[in-house]
């Protein structure tokens, strides 16, 4: 067994353990922390695949920015230990059905892909320098300009929406 495979297996264990920990924690803050660990593990996976740029972005964006905001909201609302709310009657069967569909799809894809090509080829190491960054920016702003701009408008709409929803009317109370 190569050392890379051992690292991969250990990391997978950590990833699965943290994901389960996230699901089963009673306290929302602990859940959030497990999720952070999970994101960091995924970042290490990217490093293993030879993609340091994505790994670092993953840590900055997910583990750094988004999860801090999550924690912030949990703490601000004091929502660490909310009592379990009443479930909607159709929620559980629907969740079961959807999770089964997801699992079947994942397994199908795994095996159909794996049969053709088992080996994961690491990208060229030279792709990770400034050139690849430039290439990525070029394709973002040329080939994928429309999706890129649409995404930014979507984010803008979400931001404006959040502000409008929470804004207090001037001259009111």
């Amino acid at each position, binding site marked *: 067994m190569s050392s890379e495979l051992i690292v991969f297996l250990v990391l997978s264990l950590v990833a699965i353990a943290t994901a389960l920990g996230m699901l089963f924690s009673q306290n929302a803050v602990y859940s959030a922390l497990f999720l952070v660990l999970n994101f960091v593990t995924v970042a290490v996976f990217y490093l293993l695949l030879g993609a*340091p740029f994505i790994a*670092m972005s993953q840590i900055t964006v997910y583990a750094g*920015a988004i999860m801090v905001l999550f924690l912030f909201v949990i703490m601000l609302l004091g929502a660490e230990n909310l009592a379990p709310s009443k479930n909607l009657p159709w929620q559980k069967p629907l969740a079961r059905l959807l999770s089964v569909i997801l699992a079947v799809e994942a397994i199908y894809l795994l095996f159909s892909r794996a049969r053709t090509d088992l080996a994961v080829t690491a990208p060229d190491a030279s792709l990770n320098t400034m050139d690849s960054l430039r290439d990525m920016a070029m394709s973002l702003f040329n080939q994928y300009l429309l999706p890129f701009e649409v995404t930014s408008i979507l984010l803008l709409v979400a931001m404006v929406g959040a502000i409008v929803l929470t804004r207090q009317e001037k001259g009111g109370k």
Partner: protein
Amino acid sequence: MDWTIWLEWILKGLVLCLILLTGFAYLTLYERRALARIQVRVGPNRAGPQGLLQPIADAVKLIFKEELTPGKVYKTVFFLAPVLTVVPSLIIAAVVPLGSSFTLFGREITLYVADLNVGVLYLTSIASIAVYGIVLAGWSSNNKYAMLGGIRSSAQMISYELSLGLCFVIAILLGDSMNLNEIVAAQEEVWFVLVQPAGALVFLIVTLAEVNRAPFDMPEAEQELTAGYHSEYSGMKFALFFMAEYQKMIVISMIAATLFFGGYREFWFLKDTFFSVDAVWKIGSFQTQAWFLGPIYLLLKVVVLLFFMIWIRATWPRIRYDRLMAFGWKVLLPLSLVLAFITATGILLAQELNNPMIYSIGIPVVSSLVALLTVVLIYRELRRKSHGRF
């Protein structure tokens, strides 16, 4: 892989940690003495000559202090938080080059722990992780003051991280690389602080907020929050927070020096002289490249930058929390965006028109004008408000 490589990595990591720990100890002394000078006091000068043994006395005192764990804290996180605060402040220094390289026992030893191609991104990711320690310390203490301190700090650090990232972008654009070694090498001719003075200034302001230093030390504003997020900590656990704060100061000065002040390189006008890092020194028959000047230059720059931080703490009042947020979002973020835009445009124009003057004159002048305009606008806004509600 060769075991000597592992040995080299481990040794270099250890040396870096030791440097930062010693730096922390003496930075506390430096700060106390400098503050005392500014406030016309003497400062600690009893332990050893000029008080040089004071840090050791402090450490002994902190070790022997009783460690209290309040009854209703969330234990795991309460113990984890100081560690989570210290670790990022140590590992962030791994990509900062302390010097070029030298030869020892026939192998080339480089003066940095890691040579990452995405070094600048590494800095942003570790900086964004650094928030957790403080937030969790505030939350796990189960204390309103600590909690408010933690929330304030997370809000503040998230807000100022955006401008920090944009300042990193300026340095990346100027250096045409995300590798800190290459950014330093690109400053051989001229430091980036001269090309983009306003950007460097914004960077220095933002770093003050990122390390929660005065005048942005809202998370631990004594009058409002007792000691903020570390109210409930005592003994060595408190010392860890203290250590993290001072190590962050050192590291952030190192990063500022690397990105805008030429890193370990000499002054740009000393290039090709005896004092250059690349110079070859001859002492009798012994001949060596002057690599050891690199760490010395970096140390000098860090000491000067640290002095500015201490100076600001001694002379500026803490700004109000809502103004802090307004300053971050309404002033620094747009300003750093415009500066990044000016830098990019300048570089592109200089390339397209084949006119280096745009790069060396245009960018500094335009960005300084923009910064000046911002200052004027803030001044007028504050004057307008002072006649109104405030």
